[in-house]
């Protein structure tokens, strides 16, 4: 097995999905909002990045827009697009609570997914947008994939720092108060509705960035990459990591990605054994989840990290 390659992939994907899990954590653990459509915000980032960087359509291309902008402007636009998408989807849904919000966000994501599938002028339909380019080359002796992994990790760290800054402020305390007891928080002058809306919008921005980086990584923006499965994986990572700790969330995501990648990269001798492994993967995944939920190792590790700090 190619360990360096595996670790680079885990670092890259772990960072990208870590950003999504962190944002979900902000929405859920601090804002009390259940978003089961998080993949849509991620997809908006990826597609926006692809559309703004790709060349204008030619030949057989069915997509209508390609702007050929520099990569970094497209990343910024991806974050803004996710913000706008959050504003549009949040406006009718955020009045709903708990499972109703979960259902509507899920429905929004499904509608968006089917829009991507069927509206060829935006994203080329099922084929997707395949003209995404990675912006970084080798940095002297450092290979491109390491540079890229570093950039993804940087996005994760930046997101972590910005969220932390927000959460240690009185703003974060007010969010905790609202989540703990909304009626009492209102009686203490906290504008619960407004703050929830803000959290929903703020947390969408890094998800848009992460979507852009994911599009760079896969050099593709395709509907099959943005199914509800992404939402579930990110939720599982959140639960694994322990919703109350940002470090646990990051560790949980990294652990989950590592597990998936190691199953994918295992050098099987025969096709038959690969088939067996593929079917066993689901069983093992289930067993690992049960074990992790029972013993919560990531959460414990995160707590130790916090204590020793």
């Amino acid at each position, binding site marked *: 097995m190619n360990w360096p390659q595996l670790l680079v992939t885990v670092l890259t994907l772990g960072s990208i999905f870590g950003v999504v899990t962190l944002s979900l954590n902000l929405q859920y653990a601090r804002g009390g909002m259940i978003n089961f459509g998080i993949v849509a915000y991620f997809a908006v980032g990826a597609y926006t990045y692809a559309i703004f960087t790709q060349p204008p359509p030619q030949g057989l291309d069915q997509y209508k827009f390609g702007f050929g902008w520099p990569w970094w402007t497209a990343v910024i636009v991806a974050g803004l697009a996710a913000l706008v998408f959050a504003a549009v989807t949040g406006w009718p849904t955020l009045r709903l609570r708990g499972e109703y919000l979960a259902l509507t966000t899920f429905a929004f994501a499904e509608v968006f997914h089917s829009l991507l599938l069927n509206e060829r002028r935006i994203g080329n339909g099922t084929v997707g947008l395949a003209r995404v380019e990675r912006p970084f080359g080798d940095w002297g002796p450092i290979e491109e994939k390491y540079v890229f992994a570093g950039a993804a990790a940087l996005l994760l760290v930046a997101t972590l720092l910005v969220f932390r800054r927000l959460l240690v*402020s*009185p703003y974060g*305390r007010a969010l905790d108060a609202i989540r*703990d007891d909304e009626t009492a928080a209102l009686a203490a002058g906290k504008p*619960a509705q407004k703050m929830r809306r803000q959290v929903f919008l703020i947390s969408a921005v890094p998800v848009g960035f992460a979507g852009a980086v994911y599009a760079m990584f896969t050099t593709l923006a395709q509907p099959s990459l943005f199914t509800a499965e992404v939402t579930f994986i990110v939720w599982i990572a959140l639960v694994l990591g322990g919703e109350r700790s940002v470090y646990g969330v990051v560790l949980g995501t990294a652990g989950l990605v590592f597990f998936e990648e190691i199953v994918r990269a295992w050098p099987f001798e025969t096709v038959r054994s690969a088939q067996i492994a593929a079917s066993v993967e689901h069983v093992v995944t289930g067993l690992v989840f049960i074990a992790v939920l029972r013993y919560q190792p990531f959460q414990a590790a995160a707590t130790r990290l916090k204590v020793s700090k």
Partner: protein
Amino acid sequence: MTLPGGAAALNGALLEARHISKRFSGLQAVGGSDGLSFGVDRGAFVGLIGPNGAGKSTTFDLMSGVQTSDTGSVFFNGHDITRSSPDTIAEQGIGRTFQTPRAFESLTVLQNVVAGATSPGESLRWAFGRSWRNHETEIVEAAQAILRRVGLHERAAARVSDLSGGELRMLEVARQLVRDPTVLLLDEPTAGVHPGLQERLAALLQDLHSGGMTLVVVEHNLHFLLALADHILVLADGALLAQGPPADIRADPAVISAYLGGGDAA
């Protein structure tokens, strides 16, 4: 002051209910036949009494924006706050506690009181900066002073889940006091509070009253309330049965038959 509704304005009232009512799926909780109207003067200490289910807590909900009145209006400082949200009403200076004490479980006792105050760092614009830290020290000091005042200073670092029911009540009072409200509505502050702490609470309320705070207190403990309040409102079936100074209320035959049950509580 001219107000809709026809009847003369209650002169100088700081907080005023005019024909308010609330119906819950057929049950008239507040309002009676013509809606509930009363005024609370600036600096007054008003007691709100009445049998279980009379509509006392619902009246508080209507005045603090937790519920919206079906009819009529609520005025505070001359502004119509009938349809204002509870957080804006709180920001305007009406504080309240709840019959079942509420607390922020994930925060410590001190942090609960600190969270009661409105810090500049609670707005998104300031949260990322550093200037809110200057105010933070002030708020924490104010919170500590108030905890001392309600007798919870030794519990400052405790989790709220470790507090007794009576301590929780005092914590809720503290969380409102740190906001320095113009009017404070207290819903059964002595319920579940042991006698020693009740005396402390009585002294505190007297202190707040002489400091100029306007108080409206719902109580079943008439012994406690009639000794403190200077004006009593008696509610029965959502309507005002009687009002006046405590001495008159004690002697009012209608009140005695509807509520005091022979005056044993006084």
